[in-house]
């Protein structure tokens, strides 16, 4: 399908995925379309785990760090699955589908690991965890014109769905389709979950394309997805979060509810909190000419290596070279200068507030 659109493809976690669509103008055009109009992404590689049963809530509370008891039916939130060490199995979006019914949307690269980890950790509860990822094609429609685009294709009044809430409705004549106001672009938008058979997926893709035509919708690849999420400081597994990075280091503690009942990783995080972290995630902006990229080393003014870049790239909307990096807390103050080594040269960068990009509030 994407090849028909002339996409450049790449293997991503075992999925053959489009990086960018030269026909839509390439990565930068795709990125800007999402910031100013609308873009669409095939994100079917994301995994889906359903947890159902009389103790589904207890199970979700045990395996994830956010407080799912606060969720109402039709509401979702950002959370994470943790190892006993307080480090990440994965980050997830938890959707409360019904009283005893939760949907966890997980990453592609970690799908099998996540599923076996979830099954193992919910086994003491009366519930069942099913990997239902193969049943759905997930399409993200993102940007200020996302609502106007999708509204043409559904009977649900989308203006009634708040950020991080979802509804079921008819989309492209497909009844009972999950429509969530979620995304990974730091922009307004929706994610829809449609049956994964090829004719249906292609039909929906084409209908969204047609509906978005008047707003100059473009198909977007993984490249733009990455730069959009980076501008919004959204974590990517294997970069900002991993099995060796804990919640406090990743500065995701506001999604981690220490006051709720016990959960995997809690005890370790209490210890980390008491002792203080040795490194913390900061946002960097290059002051001198140069592009900090994933894995580059970070140095202090004296030339001592102090950390590394987890994700770095030119930011197409902000038109700056930005990065996320782990550095010791004493180097994390806003305005602090550090140096990123780029092909042997130390390029001056400064710590800046994050997220780098925040979408304008609706008038």
């Amino acid at each position, binding site marked *: 399908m994407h090849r028909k659109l002339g996409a450049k493809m790449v293997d991503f976690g075992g999925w053959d995925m489009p990086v960018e669509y030269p026909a839509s103008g390439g990565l930068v055009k795709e990125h800007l379309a999402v910031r100013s109009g609308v873009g669409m992404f095939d994100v079917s590689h994301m995994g889906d785990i359903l947890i159902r049963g009389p103790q589904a809530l207890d199970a979700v509370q045990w395996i994830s760090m956010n407080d799912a008891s606060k969720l109402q039916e039709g509401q979702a939130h950002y959370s994470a699955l943790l190892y006993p060490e307080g480090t990440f199995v994965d980050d997830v979006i938890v959707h409360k589908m019904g009283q005893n019914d939760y949907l966890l949307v997980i990453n592609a690269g970690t799908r099998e690991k996540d599923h076996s980890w979830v099954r193992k950790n919910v086994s003491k509860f009366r519930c069942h965890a099913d990997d239902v990822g193969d049943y759905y094609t997930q399409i993200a429609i993102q940007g200020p014109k996302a609502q106007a685009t999708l509204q043409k294709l559904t009977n649900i009044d989308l203006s009634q769905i708040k950020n991080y809430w979802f509804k079921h409705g008819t989309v492209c004549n497909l009844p009972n389709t999950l429509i969530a106001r979620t995304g990974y672009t730091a922009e307004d938008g929706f994610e829809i979950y449609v049956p994964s058979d090829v004719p249906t997926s292609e039909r929906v893709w084409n209908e969204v394309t047609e509906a978005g035509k008047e707003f100059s919708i473009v198909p977007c690849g993984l490249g733009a997805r990455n730069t959009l999420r980076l501008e919004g400081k959204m974590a990517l597994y294997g970069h900002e979060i991993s099995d060796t990075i804990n919640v406090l280091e990743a500065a995701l503690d506001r999604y981690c509810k220490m006051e709720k009942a016990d959960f995997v990783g809690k005890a370790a995080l209490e210890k980390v909190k008491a002792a203080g972290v040795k490194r913390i995630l900061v946002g960097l902006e290059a002051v001198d000419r140069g*592009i900090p990229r994933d894995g580059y080393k970070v140095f202090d003014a004296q030339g001592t290596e102090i950390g590394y870049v987890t994700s770095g*790239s030119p930011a*197409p909307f902000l038109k700056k070279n930005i990065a996320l990096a782990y550095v010791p807390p004493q180097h994390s103050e806003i305005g602090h200068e550090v140096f990123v080594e780029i*092909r042997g040269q130390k390029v001056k960068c400064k710590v800046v507030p994050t997220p780098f990009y925040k979408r304008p509030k609706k008038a």
Partner: protein
Amino acid sequence: MAYPKDYKYTKEHEWIQVKGNTATVGITDHAQESLGDIVFVELPKVGAQVEAGKSFGTVESVKAVSELYAPASGKVVEVNESLNQGPEAVNQDAHKAWMIKLELTNPSQADGLMSADDYEKYVAEEK
């Protein structure tokens, strides 16, 4: 985009146009297309020596860094400074947006590189 007949081409997707003992060097249209939006070009200083087959700089798109390989050896006599401010010129017309000019050590060194026709075949096979 047509590949100029009076240029020679490398397997690493640079072009070289030789005039007497000087030469102009850039990257091919195929290269710019594969790289995508070019946002940064790092070139040597005037007076630097470059060696055939060795890196003389880098070109960066939003998503990746690529080395630039010299099609021939020589001394850098001019650098296209306008690419510092406007690297997107390479995307717009890669065969005009030159990067460096060289005083060639051996003016016939580039003779063995690919012709426009050979390069087009080479690119077609690579796809």
